[in-house]
């Protein structure tokens, strides 16, 4: 389906819409009243069909808006449906989560931060704000009065099982419940998991986030357009090239700026170097989880030269701060090019050895194949992205579908696997590392001459959607400007936000020993510190992290013995 056919398709629901706008190529904005949003969303998701990206709640002057962002990956088109809620006193809209599980979290989040009620939502518990956040204070409303002193001072020593208040707990305690976290190895968002188990088998999984909620979207509204990249690069330390890239894509779309070619290449090189060290990091941690600490140590040793290269280019090992609206802050000096190429050759050799060691190992085949399978249907329903989607046969990649930076000029392949298990995701990441090395080399060869930035004076009123392919999947930023020097709304969706809820599809039915590696397989930016505990229903620690890790490793060992 090309752009024209997509437009024709959208005409089918014209009677439910109040407006269709297309300010730039590949960006379509539909408007409707809140009452029609359910029907239009169902049409967009099921009949067109589009991939759900995220929803954004906006506090406009006289109404609330809920923006549903969709992507049509075949042509890289973003379709945004704006639903207007006119009733400011009791804002409410029909929930789309019943047919679109990927929207469950974001509707809960919008309810938390804007107080919009989602009717018929299956599970309207608090998601993003802390347990002790006062009811009725909605931080993203423009007139929100934040509690001056946070009332979090209670000093009781609560056992971890009560981290969610009993009223919010869905799982009945008649079956054993294993809480995992909040201090645990999947530490990017410090999630808290509650696994219901039947013997060794996981029967349900529930998640609580908020531990890492820093209120970045609100802080961003208080920063100038040029300061925001420094903030968004600190959303996630290991996606610190992708978030600013997605943000500047959005702002450059509003302002109609095209950065110089050299800047596009520099952006690409930094983003791909980041992908290389991020994927190597994942391989190491995955090895750690199943008891291959040698792989862990090797992998982390091999990513060090990449960090050194990034430090030479940008001045910092992480949080590069190199992307700005209109270009880049620092250029890659030409005399550094041979050194980068030489280091990449070295890394490639080592990665070939490591990849062979990992992919040819019969024990790893036995241990990881068929574990934590995310089927293609579930991958679409949960709208997962990145290697998690590509491992499940959903071949989407923003770099190819909606090229930004210099990806359109480079010769590379999207790596896909069909199985959807942990092994498939490992294969995707390992092979992508080689594609990234190839891309950096090609970009260095082709690096055009010229400046790395254009001067940007003003950001006009408007709105823009920017996305970029982070190592974990699509990073999406929506920015709205009113012509001032700060964004009036800045929505961020990190890839883990859609990848993590897919645990419900991939973990249920698994053995407890497989849970750590299944959770790890989507790479929710975890680090390998030992902070995971399994507690029985009385709040006693039944398995701590070491015990779980031991379970996982014993299984590997058992398979090894059986194969000998």
């Amino acid at each position, binding site marked *: 389906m090309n752009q024209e056919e997509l437009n024709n398709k959208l005409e089918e629901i014209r009677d439910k819409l109040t407006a269709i706008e297309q300010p730039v190529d590949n960006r379509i904005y539909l408007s409707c009243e809140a009452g029609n949003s359910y029907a239009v969303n169902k049409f967009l998701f099921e009949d067109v069909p589009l991939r759900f990206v995220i929803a954004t709640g906006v506090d406009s002057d006289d109404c609330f808006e809920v923006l549903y962002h969709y992507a049509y990956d075949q042509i890289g088109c973003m379709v945004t449906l704006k639903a207007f809620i006119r009733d400011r006193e009791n804002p409410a809209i029909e929930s789309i989560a019943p047919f679109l599980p990927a929207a469950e979290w974001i509707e809960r989040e919008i309810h938390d931060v804007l107080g919009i009620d989602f009717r018929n939502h299956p599970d309207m518990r608090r998601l993003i*704000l*802390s*347990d*002790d*956040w006062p009811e009725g204070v909605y*931080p993203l409303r423009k007139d*929100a009065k*934040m509690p001056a002193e*946070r009332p*979090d*001072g*209670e*000093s009781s*020593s*609560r056992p971890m099982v009560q*981290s969610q208040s009993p009223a919010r707990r869905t799982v009945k305690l008649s079956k054993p419940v294993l809480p995992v976290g*909040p*201090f645990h190895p999947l*530490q*990017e968002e*410090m999630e808290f998991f509650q696994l219901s188990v039947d013997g060794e088998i996981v029967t349900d999984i529930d998640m609580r986030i*908020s*531990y*890492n*909620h*820093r*209120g*970045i979207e*609100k*802080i961003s509204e*208080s920063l100038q357009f040029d300061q925001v990249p*420094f*903030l968004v690069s*600190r*959303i*996630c*330390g*290991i996606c*610190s090239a992708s978030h600013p890239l997605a943000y500047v894509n959005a702002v450059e779309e509003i302002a109609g700026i095209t950065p110089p070619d050299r800047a596009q290449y520099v952006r690409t090189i930094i983003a791909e170097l980041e992908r290389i060290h991020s994927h190597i*990091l994942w391989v*190491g941690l995955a090895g750690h989880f199943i008891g291959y600490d040698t792989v*862990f*140590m090797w992998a*982390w*040793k091999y990513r*060090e030269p990449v960090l050194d290269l990034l430090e030479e280019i940008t001045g910092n*090992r*992480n*949080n590069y701060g190199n992307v700005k609206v209109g270009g880049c802050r620092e250029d890659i000096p030409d005399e550094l090019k041979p050194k980068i190429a030489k280091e990449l050759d070295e890394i490639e050799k080592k990665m070939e050895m490591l990849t062979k060691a990992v992919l040819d190992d019969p024990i790893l085949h036995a241990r990881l194949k068929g574990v934590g399978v995310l089927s293609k249907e579930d991958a679409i329903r949960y709208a997962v992205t990145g290697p998690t989607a590509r491992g499940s046969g959903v071949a989407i990649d923003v770099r190819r579908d909606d090229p930004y930076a210099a990806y359109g000029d480079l010769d590379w392949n999207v790596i896909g696997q069909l199985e959807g298990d942990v092994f498939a995701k490992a294969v995707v990441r390992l092979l992508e590392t080689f594609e990234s090395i190839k891309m950096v080399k090609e970009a260095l060869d082709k690096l055009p001459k010229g400046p790395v930035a254009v001067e940007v004076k003003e950001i006009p009123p408007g709105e823009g959607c920017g996305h970029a392919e982070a190592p974990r999947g699509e990073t999406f930023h929506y920015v709205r400007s009113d012509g001032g020097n700060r964004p009036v709304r800045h929505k961020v969706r990190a890839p883990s936000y859609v990848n993590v809820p897919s645990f419900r599809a991939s973990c249920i039915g698994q053995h407890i020993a497989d849970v750590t590696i299944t959770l790890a397989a989507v790479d929710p*930016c975890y*680090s*390998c*510190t*030992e*902070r995971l505990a399994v507690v029985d229903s009385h709040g006693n620690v039944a398995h*701590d*992290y*070491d015990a779980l890790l031991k379970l996982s490793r014993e299984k590997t060992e058992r398979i090894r013995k059986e194969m000998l």
Partner: protein
Amino acid sequence: MWSLKKSPWVFHVNTGACNNCDIEIVNCLTPKFDVERFGIKLVGSPRHADALLVTGVVTAQAAPRLREVYRQTSKPCVVFATGACACDKGIFATGYHVVGPVDKIIREIDPTAIIVYVPGCPPKPEAIISGVVQALSVL
């Protein structure tokens, strides 16, 4: 105090960090820097820890958990506020869900706590190691 100076065992607490400090901490343990040579070891329980490596701004949801973790450590326990966020909330200082920094939360329950500050965004592994060495030499 002398017991802290040889091979301190550390427990790592993320209280709302961007993961960078945490990855740099793990970098300290892996072959390039390898502080395990000196007996510095990450442990799985705060009850085994001589020191807490705390990263992040301390969000509203994490604050009670940080207090609880500190309470569970055996005293004396050195708290390393690692990174700009842990030292003074860094770029997230104005966030509505941020109640830190780390020293404020820890001092609420133990005014005499030993707190070491390792600034940087993120601090390089060399900086973290240097912070640990300096702290141990003055204890």
